[in-house]
C-alpha cells in the first residue's frame, strides 16, 4: 500500500485523540469518584444508581419515622409509669382507709390526698408531647379529659396513629385514651371515664367513712390496674418491634449505601492504574509520532 504524508498524520491524530479520550475518561472518574456521569456511560449502572438512591432515601426517612415513633412511645410509657405510681399510692391509702381504726381526722387527710391523686391522674391523662395530647387519639389538639375526669372529646379505640416504618409496614404509636382510661371501651364526650369514676366512687366512700365499702371497692381499683398493665404490656411489645425495626433499618442503611458505592463508585486503585497505563501509552505514541512525521527525504537532500 502506498503510504502518504497525510495518512501518517491522520493516523497519528486518530490514535492520539483515542488515547486522550480514554485518559479523560479515567481522569473524570477519579475527579468525580463515580464510574459514570451520564446514563449512556453505562445504562445498567445508571438505572441501578437511581433505584438505590431512592431506596437509601426511603430508609433514611423510615429511620426518622422510627425515631419519632420511639420518642412518642417513650413519652407514653413514662406517663403510664407515673400513672402507675399514682394508682399504687391511691391503692395504699385506700387500703389504709379500709382499716377501721382510722380517726375522722385521718380519714379527712386520706380523702384529701385521694382527691389530689385524682387530679394528678386527670393531669397525666392530658399529657402533651410537642404540643400534642398523647391520649386524645386523632384529636391531638384537644385534651382528653375535663377537670372532673369527663371525656372532653369522643374517643374510640380505632384512633390509632400509625407511622410507616417500612414499605407496607406501619406501627401504631399511640395509646387511645379510651383504651387506657375506659378499660378498652369507646368514650362519649361528657361521659365520665371509668378510671376516674373508680377513683370518685372510692373517694366518696372514704368521705362517708364507710370503710367496708372502701374495702369492697378495692377490686374495682385492681381491675383498673390490670387494665393499665395490659395497655403497658401492649405498648412495650410495640416498642420492642420498633427497636428491632430500627436495628434492621440501620443494617439496611449500611448495606444499601455499600451497594450504592459498589455500583457507582470507582475503584480508585484500579482507575489510577488504568490512568497511568493510558498515560504511558499516550507518551509512547507522542514520542514515536514525533519521530515518524518529522522526517522525510527532504531532510536528506543537499
Amino acid at each position, binding site marked *: 500500500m502506498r503510504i502518504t*504524508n*497525510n495518512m501518517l498524520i*491522520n493516523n497519528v491524530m486518530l490514535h492520539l485523540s483515542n488515547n486522550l479520550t480514554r485518559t479523560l475518561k479515567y481522569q473524570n472518574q477519579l475527579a468525580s469518584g463515580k464510574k459514570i456521569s451520564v*446514563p449512556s456511560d453505562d445504562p445498567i449502572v445508571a438505572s441501578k444508581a437511581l433505584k438505590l*438512591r431512592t431506596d437509601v432515601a*426511603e430508609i433514611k*426517612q423510615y429511620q426518622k419515622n422510627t425515631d419519632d415513633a420511639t420518642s412518642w412511645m417513650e413519652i407514653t410509657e413514662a406517663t403510664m409509669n407515673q400513672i402507675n405510681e399514682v394508682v399504687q399510692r391511691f391503692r395504699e391509702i385506700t387500703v389504709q382507709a379500709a382499716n377501721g381504726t382510722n380517726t375522722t381526722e385521718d380519714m379527712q387527710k386520706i380523702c384529701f390526698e385521694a382527691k389530689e391523686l385524682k387530679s394528678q391522674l386527670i393531669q397525666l391523662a392530658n399529657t402533651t408531647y410537642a404540643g400534642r395530647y398523647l391520649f386524645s387519639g*386523632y384529636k391531638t389538639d384537644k385534651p382528653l379529659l375535663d377537670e372532673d375526669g369527663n371525656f372532653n372529646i369522643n374517643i374510640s379505640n380505632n384512633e390509632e396513629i400509625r407511622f410507616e416504618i417500612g414499605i407496607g409496614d406501619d406501627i401504631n404509636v399511640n395509646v387511645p385514651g379510651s383504651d387506657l382510661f375506659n378499660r378498652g371501651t369507646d368514650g362519649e364526650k361528657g361521659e365520665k371515664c371509668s378510671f376516674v369514676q373508680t377513683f370518685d366512687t372510692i373517694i366518696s366512700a372514704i368521705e362517708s367513712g364507710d370503710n367496708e365499702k372502701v374495702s369492697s371497692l378495692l377490686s374495682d381499683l385492681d381491675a383498673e390496674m390490670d387494665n393499665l398493665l395490659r395497655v403497658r404490656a401492649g405498648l412495650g411489645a410495640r416498642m420492642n418491634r420498633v427497636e428491632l425495626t430500627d436495628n434492621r433499618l440501620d443494617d439496611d442503611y449500611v448495606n444499601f449505601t455499600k451497594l450504592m458505592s459498589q455500583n457507582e463508585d470507582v475503584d480508585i486503585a484500579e482507575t489510577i492504574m488504568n490512568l497511568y497505563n493510558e498515560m504511558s501509552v499516550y507518551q509512547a505514541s507522542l514520542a514515536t509520532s514525533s519521530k515518524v512525521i518529522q522526517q522525510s527525504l527532504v531532510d536528506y537532500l543537499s
Partner: protein
Amino acid sequence: MGSSSAFLGMEIALRGLYASQRGMVTVSHNVDNTNTPGYSRQVINQKAARPMLVAGRAGMLGMGSEVVSVDRMRDTYLDEKYWSEAQYYGEWSVKSTIIIELEAIFNEPSESGFSTIISDFYSSLQQLSTDPTSLATRNAVKEKGIAVAKYFNSVAAHFDQLQEDLNNMVYAKVEEINSIADQIRTLNLQIYNYEVMGNTANDLRDQRSYLVDRLSQLINCSAYEVETGLTLPNGTPEKRFVVVISGKTLVDHQNVVHLKCVTREEKLNNEDLNNLYEVVWEDGNTLDVKSGELKGYLDMRDGNDGIAAANGQGYTPNCKGIPYYQRKLNEFVQVFARTFNEGIIDSDGDGKLDKVNGHADGYRLSSSETDEPSGVRFFTMLDDEGNYMSSDDFINYIKQKAQMAGIEDDPDTDYDEQLVYGYSLLTAKNFCISAEINADPVENISASSVPGQQGNNENLASLLDMRHNTYMFMEGSGEDFIKTLISSMGVDGQQYSVYYDIQEGIMKQLDNRRQSISGVSLNEEMVNLIKYRQVYAAAARMIQTYAEVLDIMINRLGL
C-alpha cells in the same frame, strides 16, 4: 543521416528539457498542495513523441518525449463509497451529540435530579404523617411539592429550547445544502468550459469532489457524471455532472433546484412548538430525507417513537426525540396528579381504574366534625397568565373541556370519567401546585381522613401508599416509570455513540484508502524531483553536445 539531423537532435533534446521541466512543475504543485483538503496528486502523462518516418530507409526516427496530459490520481469507486457512508456518519454524529444534551437536561444520576426531588417530596409527606399538625412540616411539604412541579417545568422548558435550537439547525443545514449546490453548479460550468477543448480541470474537479464530500455528510445524496450522447469538439463524449437526493436531482449541470424551509401549519406532534420548519423542494415537491446530518436534526426534533402524527399525515420519525420525552413527561404528570389529587388509580392491578382516597378527599387541618372533604387538589395547572389555578377553577376548566370533548360520567364506575379525561390537559410545562396549597399549606394540606381530627394521618397514608403502587404505569410505579425512561435514554445514547464510532472508523478507513491513492507523498515527490532534475541536466548536456557538433560543422569543415 541528412544535414538537418544536428538541428533535429537539438530539437529532441529541447523536448527533454520541456518534459522534465513540466515534471518539476508538477512536483512543485503537488508539494504545495500536500495539506490541501480534497486535493489529489497529479502526475504527468509522458510519452515518446510521434516518430518520424525516414524516407528511403527502413524504420522510424525517434522524436524524443512529450507530456500529453497531467492526470489526477483518483479512484471514483472510493469516492462513491465515501459518499454513501458519509450520510450515516453525519446522522450519527448529530444524534450522539444531541442525546448527550438530553441526558444533561434530565441530570441523572445526581443529587439534584428527579429521583432526589421526588424522594424529598415523599419524605416530607412521611414527616408530616408523624406529626400532621406541624406547621413547619406542612410548609416543607408545600416547598417540596413546588420543587417537584418546577423540576418538570424546567425540564420541559429546556426541551422546548432544544427543539427551537434544532429547528434553527435544520434551517442552517438547508442553507448549507443550497450553498453547496450553487458552488457545485458554478464549478460544473467552469469545468465544462475548460474541458470542452480537451483539457482536464484537475484542481476544479478536486474542489467539486470535496464539496460532494461535505454534502454527503449533510444529506443522503449520490453524485455522478452522465453522458449526454453529444460529442465535444475534441471528439470525447460530453459529460454532465449530476447530484441526486432521494431520486430527485439537486444539481443537473447548470440547473439547481434548491431545498426550502416552510413553517408547518399543523403540528406534527402535540408536544411541538409552533411554526417548526418542514423541509421541501423549492418546486413544491416533498423531500424524503433518509440520512445525513439533516436527518439527525429532524429526527431528534420530531421523533416520537413512530406513533401516528398529530396532523393525521403519516407517522412521526421512529426515533426517541424531544416530542417523545415531552410526551412521556406529560404522561407522568397527568397520572401522578390524577392519582395524588383524586385517588383515581388502578389499585388492584385488574387493568381498570379504581377510586381510593386522594388529596381532595381529605379534610383541612381545622375542619370541624360536620365539614365536607376539603376538595383541595394539591397539584393543578398554570393558567394563561402563568398563575397557579385554584382547585375549583381547575376542576371547572377540565370538566368543561371534557364536556366539549363529549365525555360523560359513567355511573357504573365509582370515579368521574370527565376528571380522568381532564387530567390529560396537564403537561410538564403547565404542571404546578394549586393556589390553595400555595396560599395556605398549613390549613389546606388535607392529611386527615375524618373531619375534626387534627392528629389523623390516614389520608396521608393513602397518598403515601400510591408511591409504591406498581399498577400506576405499565412500567410500574411512578418512580419506576421515570427510571425506565432515563435508563432507556441511556441505552439509546450508548447505541448512538457506538454507531457513531463504527461509522467514524469506516470513514477513517475509506479516507486512508483515498489518501493512499490520491495523497501526496513527499518522499515520492522528492524522488521525482531528482529524477526530473537529472533528465533536465542530461538534456541540457545533449544540447551542449549538439552545439559542439554544430561548431565543428560550421567553423572547422569546408574551405
